[in-house]
């Protein structure tokens, strides 16, 4: 098939941007979307034109490095799919495909389709961990975790940190990312000692970079791991509770 790409080009964070049009010809159905981009870019290099910058690494939907707006949808419009898992069989001959970077203040553009997502690392650094210095852990089976809890903790932990949730949100809010990490750690027994301090630290850091959540739910639809917005509700509940919780009484059962 032949498709036409309209690609956002921007030389640097402060530079003005523009769309450039490129033709992708003789594209096979079996090709992944990023392989189609590789071919277009390789041809540009051989013509002496700088290819468009685009991030990707594992190309199996787990590292979270890829992620662009495809025809206005984060990672394209196939549900539960990262950009690298998108295949050309979902497009048709003659299609025009628009490629843009994530658009959010918290993710400044570095070049073309590549953005800076360091703000996510700052949120994790604020409290997205369980404090357990190496060597100090008890035997792994000392702390049983009910299977249902372990399962839902995994559902939350599946987040790949790509930023599609922010890109999808009309407010550029990062609640889905933040709440997924919080849910994983705050639901398991090992995470209880730091639970309330964690939620406050992470939410407050999140708000330095991102907008506020107004429950649009666009994030859930865009998430390549289909993470549920139920976790946002849990986060909000914990955040409120944290404001009242007397930390000195945390050793007591409710």
């Amino acid at each position, binding site marked *: 098939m032949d498709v036409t790409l309209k690609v956002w080009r921007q030389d*640097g964070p402060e530079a003005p941007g523009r769309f450039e049009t490129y033709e992708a010809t003789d594209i*096979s159905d*079996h*090709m*992944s979307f*990023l*392989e189609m981009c*590789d071919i277009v870019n*390789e041809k540009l*290099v*051989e013509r002496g*034109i*700088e*290819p468009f*910058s685009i991030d*990707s*690494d*594992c*190309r*199996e*939907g*787990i*590292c*979270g*490095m890829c992620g662009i707006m495809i025809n206005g949808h984060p990672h394209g419009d196939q549900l539960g*799919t990262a950009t690298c898992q998108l*295949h050309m069989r979902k497009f048709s001959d003659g299609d025009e495909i628009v490629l843009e970077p994530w658009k959010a203040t918290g993710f400044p553009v*570095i*070049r073309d389709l590549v953005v*800076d997502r*360091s703000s996510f*690392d700052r949120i*994790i*650094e604020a409290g*997205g*961990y*369980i*404090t*357990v*210095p*190496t*060597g100090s*852990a*008890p035997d*792994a089976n000392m*702390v*049983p*975790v009910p*299977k249902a809890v*372990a399962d839902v*903790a*995994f559902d939350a*932990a*599946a987040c790949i*940190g790509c930023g599609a949730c922010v890109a999808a949100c009309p407010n550029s809010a990062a609640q889905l990312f933040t709440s997924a990490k919080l849910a*994983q*750690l705050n639901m*398991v027994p*090992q*995470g209880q000692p730091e639970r309330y301090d964690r939620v406050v630290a992470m939410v407050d850091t999140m708000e330095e970079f991102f907008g506020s959540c107004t429950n649009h739910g666009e994030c859930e639809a865009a998430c390549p791991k289909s993470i549920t917005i139920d976790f946002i509700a849990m986060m909000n509940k914990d955040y409120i509770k944290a404001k009242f919780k007397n930390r000195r009484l945390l050793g007591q059962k409710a």
Partner: protein
Amino acid sequence: MSNIVLDAKVPEGPLEEKWSNARFDLKLVNPANKRKYEILIIGSGLAGASAAATLGELGYNVTMITYHDSPRRAHSIAAQGGINAAKNYHNDGDSIFRLFYDTIKGGDYRSREANVYRLAEVSNEIIDQTAAQGVPYGREYGGLLDNRSFGGAQVSRTFYSRGATGQQLLLGAYQAMARQIELGKVKLYNRMEMLDVVVHEGRAVGVVARDLITGEIRSFSGHAVVLATGGYANAYYLSTMAMMCNGTAVWRAHKHGALFANPSFTQIHPTAIPASEEFQSKLTLMSESLRNDGRIWVPKDKNETRSPDQIPEAERDYFLERRYPAFGNLVPRDVASRAAKVMFDEGYGVGPLKNGVYLDFAEAIGRLGKDVIEQRYGNLFEMYERITDENPYKVPMRIYPAPHYTMGGLWVDYHLMTTIPGLYAIGEANFSDHGGNRLGASALMQGLADGYFVLPNTIGDYLSDQLGTDPIPTDHAAFKTGEKAVKDQIDELIAINGTRSPDYFHRELGKVMIAEVGMARNEDGLKRAISEIRRLRDEFHKDVKVTGSNESFNQTLEKAGRVADFLELAELMAIDALNRRESCGGHFREESRTPEGEALRDDENYAYVAAWEFNGVGEEPTLHKEQLVFENVELAQRSYK
């Protein structure tokens, strides 16, 4: 340099006391002095992130350099199946000694006993550590940890997080490191690519790196440098590695004098999705855990045209179960890959390009129900369907072997130090624990063992002697020379201004490597590969096209530098394969096989680690041998029958 004597520094004492003896004998740095040291770590995968977190907790000042946008992207994240440990939670006869034994045997007796025993010993601590971090391991209904089986073992000792164990373990290590970043003990430099090691007066004193956003070439100085930069299987172009995985860091260390051990030892994993066409950019792995429930077969008729579900039992050849009845579908990876290759070579391959074998779940679905299979492997099935547009619940998967892991790497002693004092290599970047073949679920174990438990204990022995010395300032001539060399190489790449993209050369290299230095190797083919690689390298330096400049975000330039290094490293892989005229593990020399066609080791002549010294690009490297001594296992021809 040829006066190198390889001292593995294996501690005295019986096998099971070596690690505790070592910890007692090693010099320590007292807690108040640790803050006086600077340690540079390159790479933020399992090994690098766990080392950074642990060294930070101990009080050292750590600099973490990663070329990714976030440390969480490192390719450890893509490991699917699981992590081994000798917990014996299943009461099925496992022990530290059995894990040690399986790993030595699985590696075809080409690894160091003391290192492997230590790995088995700390495996249990890794599970404790990661469970306490909140890693969501698979659990039984009673809340305790579940296990599955992996190839090369007859016990269930593999802990897992659905099909994303690497992701969850990496996030655990990344989060532990993030805590140290917040506390100021680890300083993170992302989108920063290390391009050279700086060696001054015989010691590693720092690195030169390129800021991938601005192009600035800058130096970092420290008391020790740790390379945790992963493997080099992308020398084959098509592999299960991530697009950016490369051999640059280890190769440039090698050029400064770090010996490279067993470079030809690469693992070709049996269960990846077959390649479809020329444009393909990578191969996607289907976890080995699938072989717990999937059965591998090909039709008995070469010209079979029916859909696989229409082929009756009697007309199928379950060739692994037939050839290896004891281990069946769970033979180690090298054995499974070669057995599949025999079937393709004889014309029994399936799929449009006849380059696959079936991995069939019909029997397991019949026995356990679709729900159980979905719970165990749901995400893998979904990944398969997305790529191939076929539903593996209904028709068998088609799988094909793919380069996946490199057992070879920088030579390190028991302390994980390379032959350059002060330069360490951990995780897949070193060669130490897997011999000729790595068992499934052992890569995560080794990466975390090195980072959490080994390096933090051994590095003090080197650092203690340097108490009171400051790192060499980065305006010192040693750094300026390093920066100039890096800048010159970049300028040279841009100046070539040829006609072919870096990807073109990478693809061409990959074709040579998979054909001649792949699953089966022979003398003629390896010699052909060496001359072909040299020809490609010359062509690259005459005809590569790098667009743009150094002073901007330039992915073409990044790629060109990595391909340039692969074109040198690949030659050493072929030279090593040519030197080793025996078959062992993933290294199969067609000249060395048993009458039944199985791999034939030659312990008399090749029970050594081949550690190569660099003598210049295109020059014959010097071979140094570390003789392997086996005091606790008997060398036997590996049999999984």
